[in-house]
């Protein structure tokens, strides 16, 4: 398991290659890449700043990945989340999961993203034309995470 919280950008292709390390047991890699959009809640977004809780962030992400590993037959997972100042089209987050078969890889990848959204201590502050604002948590994210409790 690799968990990284960093200001620097990352190379998606290189990260996925490193994750699979030519392991011939891997048949499937599901990945999710989150990007900064130039619009949110109907307002133009010029950029954003991501704050986090150092220490707890990594701990929360590790726990989420452990839960995914306990629940699905997966080999490994990678989570990279950026913090600091970001612009539209910038990469924010990468979650990637390797497994023998696709069903497990998809489910674990989406599970990790859904829990990251509701459990990992990151906060976004957006710059819009009417000033900076803290992004509100969305009920749809709570609901997405709750699906997995079934």
């Amino acid at each position, binding site marked *: 398991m690799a968990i990284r919280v960093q200001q620097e950008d990352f190379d998606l292709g290189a990260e996925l290659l490193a994750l699979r390390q030519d392991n011939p047991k891997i048949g499937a890699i599901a990945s999710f890449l989150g990007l900064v959009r130039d619009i949110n809640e109907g307002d133009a977004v010029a950029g954003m700043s991501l704050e*986090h*809780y150092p220490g707890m962030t990594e701990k929360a992400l590790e726990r989420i990945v452990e839960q995914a590993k306990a629940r699905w037959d997966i080999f490994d997972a990678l989570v990279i989340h950026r913090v600091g100042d970001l612009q539209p089209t910038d990469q924010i987050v990468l979650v990637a999961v390797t497994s023998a078969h696709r069903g497990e890889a998809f489910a674990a990848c989406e599970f990790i993203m859904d829990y990251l959204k509701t459990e990992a201590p990151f*906060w976004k502050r957006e710059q819009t034309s009417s000033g900076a604002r803290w992004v509100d948590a969305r009920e749809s994210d709570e609901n997405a995470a709750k699906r997995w409790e079934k």
Partner: protein
Amino acid sequence: MITLLYFARLREALGVSTEQIDLPPEVRDIAGLTALLRARGGAWENELAEGRAYRIAVNQDMADGATAIKTGDEIAIFPPVTGG
């Protein structure tokens, strides 16, 4: 002594990012701590009022009002998270 951390919108609203306070002997859980902080009045009373959406972590694990606390703990108070 306990260490208190505040993040994001709450850090701004309360005007503090970290502080260390002595834990009064009668405060044994998170509910007791938030009552103590609310008694500061002003933004504290407002932001930490019942029904406001905030989260608390004790030693970097999510906690609730019943979670016990003790001297030496790191306790963080922050808004619902919005990463990803």
